[in-house]
């Protein structure tokens, strides 16, 4: 009998191995529990898999990963949370989800845990704490540990900028040297200069910017212009009062400027571009400038065709009303429906460690810890580190209300209608947006 059981166990093991059962888990799984971490499928996720091997080795807890492409990321995981699913023990959820996830009881509140484990939010960059952890904003109620700092930045073709013919022509046309743009007007000049230009026998274009309609693309793009032109989500003194802030004269000009950039200086067919389309346009040598999240910059720098000495990075340039940039990035939260909350919390404790944060940055993730970012060697640690640090000091985020998805959809529609589909004026688009947002907040019972 014993022999039969042994044979059976060996056979089962062989069959399981043949079928690949257990793929994606670490050897530590056999020693204890396994927890699942959910995130988007992109370069930093691969870095996290690498990093998490240390956690499994140290704790004996196996790690499984559920990564979903960005286009389905929100749909997939919000469905999971809304259906009280227990697939994810840990989730690196988008910054805008935090209000809904907190109010609907989908994330575990971490205040007591942080206190018990001595994790202080003072050790993280303030913008990331507000953006990724707090709900309500600017109150000490924490639902996530800042995990992946990110913001919108720009890349440019350094090698093209360095060409004598380009430098000569640019100076002749604009009366100044070509270089990293300091203002949005300068950025447009550069984009216009390259639009349709011949570089090594190939027609190139000015800039790849966000214009995607379906999810959040055009909103994440246009915000970088709106903020710099004076757009504000609401009256700082009177929350949810949006008239004159969302549709201020400055904001209208900002929206017009974004449309001008789209019309004058993007490649043909760029009416629905987001992160991956931007990467494709830049990597294939189509565009001189690219708007994209910093998370992609390590990969771009390593690219054999456009990386290394050929690529340069800069922060979102200033506009007439100031300089700001759209926040990206996420915090890591424990899902309240998880059956492995203790192990998930153990992971968060491990992840908050100073050495782990340093390794996270070294592997290609963007740490939010001050110990990493304020280190004197940080700005020189990567060609885009200085720009990242600068960007994180001027980030602004979209609404993080429980109704953020509705608010986002309204902006997607209004802005895309104006910028891409040429419907109405910028003033009408922003007035319409105020009307939509008021209706949504009214439905939510907000007073303004």
């Amino acid at each position, binding site marked *: 009998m014993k022999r039969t059981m042994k044979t059976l166990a060996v056979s089962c093991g062989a069959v399981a191995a043949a079928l690949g059962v257990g793929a994606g888990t670490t050897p530590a799984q056999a020693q204890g529990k396994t927890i699942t971490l959910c995130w988007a499928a992109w370069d930093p996720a691969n870095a996290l898999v690498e990093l998490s091997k240390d956690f499994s080795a140290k704790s004996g807890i196996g790690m499984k990963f559920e990564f979903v492409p960005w286009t389905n990321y*929100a*749909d997939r995981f*919000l*469905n999971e*949370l*809304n259906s009280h699913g227990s697939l994810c023990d840990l989730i690196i959820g988008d910054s805008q989800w935090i209000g*809904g996830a907190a*109010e*609907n*009881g989908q994330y575990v509140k971490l205040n007591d845990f942080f206190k018990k484990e001595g994790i202080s939010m003072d050790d993280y960059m303030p913008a990331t704490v507000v953006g990724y952890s707090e709900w309500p904003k600017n109150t000490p109620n924490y639902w996530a540990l800042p995990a992946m700092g990110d913001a919108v930045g720009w890349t440019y073709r350094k090698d093209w900028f360095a060409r004598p013919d380009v430098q000569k022509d640019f100076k002749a046309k604009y009366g100044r040297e070509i270089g990293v743009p300091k203002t949005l007007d300068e950025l447009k000049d550069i984009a216009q200069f390259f639009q349709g230009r011949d570089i090594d026998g190939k027609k190139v274009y000015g800039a790849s910017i966000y214009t*995607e*309609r*379906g999810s959040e693309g055009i909103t994440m793009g246009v915000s970088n212009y709106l903020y710099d032109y004076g757009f504000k989500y609401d009256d700082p003194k009177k929350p949810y009062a949006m008239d004159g802030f969302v549709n201020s004269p400055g904001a209208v000009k900002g929206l017009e400027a974004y449309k001008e950039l789209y019309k004058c200086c993007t*490649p*043909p*067919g*760029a*009416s*629905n571009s987001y992160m991956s389309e931007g990467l494709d346009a830049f990597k294939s040598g*189509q565009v001189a400038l690219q708007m994209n999240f910093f998370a992609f910059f390590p990969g771009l720098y390593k690219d054999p065709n456009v990386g290394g000495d050929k690529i340069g990075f800069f922060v979102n340039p200033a506009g007439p009303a100031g300089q700001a940039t759209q926040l990206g990035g996420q915090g890591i939260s424990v899902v309240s429906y998880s059956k492995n909350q203790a192990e998930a919390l153990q992971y968060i404790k491990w992840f908050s460690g100073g050495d782990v944060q340093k390794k996270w940055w070294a592997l290609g993730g963007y740490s939010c810890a001050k110990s990493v970012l304020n280190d004197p060697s940080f700005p020189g640690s990567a060609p885009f580190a200085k720009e990242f640090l600068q960007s994180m000091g001027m980030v602004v985020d979209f609404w993080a209300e*429980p*109704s953020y*998805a*509705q608010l986002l*959809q309204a902006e997607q*529609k209004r802005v*895309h*209608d*104006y910028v*891409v*589909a*040429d*419907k109405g004026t910028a003033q009408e688009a922003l007035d319409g947006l105020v009307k939509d947002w008021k209706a949504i907040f009214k439905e939510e019972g907000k007073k303004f």
Partner: protein
Amino acid sequence: MNELSASSRITYRAVMVRPGLARRIRGLSDRMLAWLFITPTIVLLLAINIFPLLWTIYLSFTNYRANRANVPTIWLGADWYQSILTDPDIWAAMQVTAHFVIWTVVIETVLGFGLAYLIDKKFRGHGMWTTIILLPMMLSPAVVGNFWTFLYQPQIGLFNYVVAFFTGRAASSFQMLGDVTLSPWAIVIVDAWMWTPYVMLICLAGLRSIPDYIYEAAEVDRASKWRQFWSITLPMALPFIMLAVLFRGIENFKMFDMVNLLTGGGPGSTTEVASITLKRAAFESWRTGYSSAFAIILFVTVFGLANIYVKALNKVKSR
């Protein structure tokens, strides 16, 4: 006993083994037996079809949101229906849907019938041509959506190059998916490319069902080919054509996947068909009550139109 068929032997053995059960089954009336067989189907139908429909109707009168199950549900009466029917954005989406449905159905019917008429004239290699024509409808809409996105790409897309070749315009001078005027036609072209073969198949079945002797009688009466077409072919194939129109009409009224992949409803809201609006309300905004009301309105619209159409179809058939 040896002469019994295999099935009889099995029954006999079963009766021998479990006489009680056999007696009980033998005691059932035909009616009871019929109920016994259809009950699982009815239960399944109730569970996955009727109950969700009734539940959706209920939700359409409430403020329920699937992502906020802890918020008390409030009865709103017909508020959502009123708000949907007076919302200009909804009417815009319905107009986009109507444009898409009408043009795809017209084009697919004309081309599909034309192709069926040609294929019906048996010529050398017609089997191979039929298979080639049928290929697009065998593809997944997701695949079709993705590769037409590439075909329509202004810089590398084959479609733009073909147009450029024939018109002399630069290939990158126009964008099928990013232009407000062209994008509604871009989705019509793709749907017609994919589903014309389906219409052709149904029409072909209609044409093949016309008995040869009718044409022979017409020949005897010296009716011209033109007269034969209008007096025999078209009237006799009409019920099949109408059936194809019904199927394509219903299918395209709820079109989602292909349009979503091609344009995502854009540029702006130019190609936002009703099902994309519904999906956004239901699974992005999580306005479950609102989207339930919209779904019911769409259902009633399709159901009502289909019913009127089926009555017309029956009239044509009974002629």
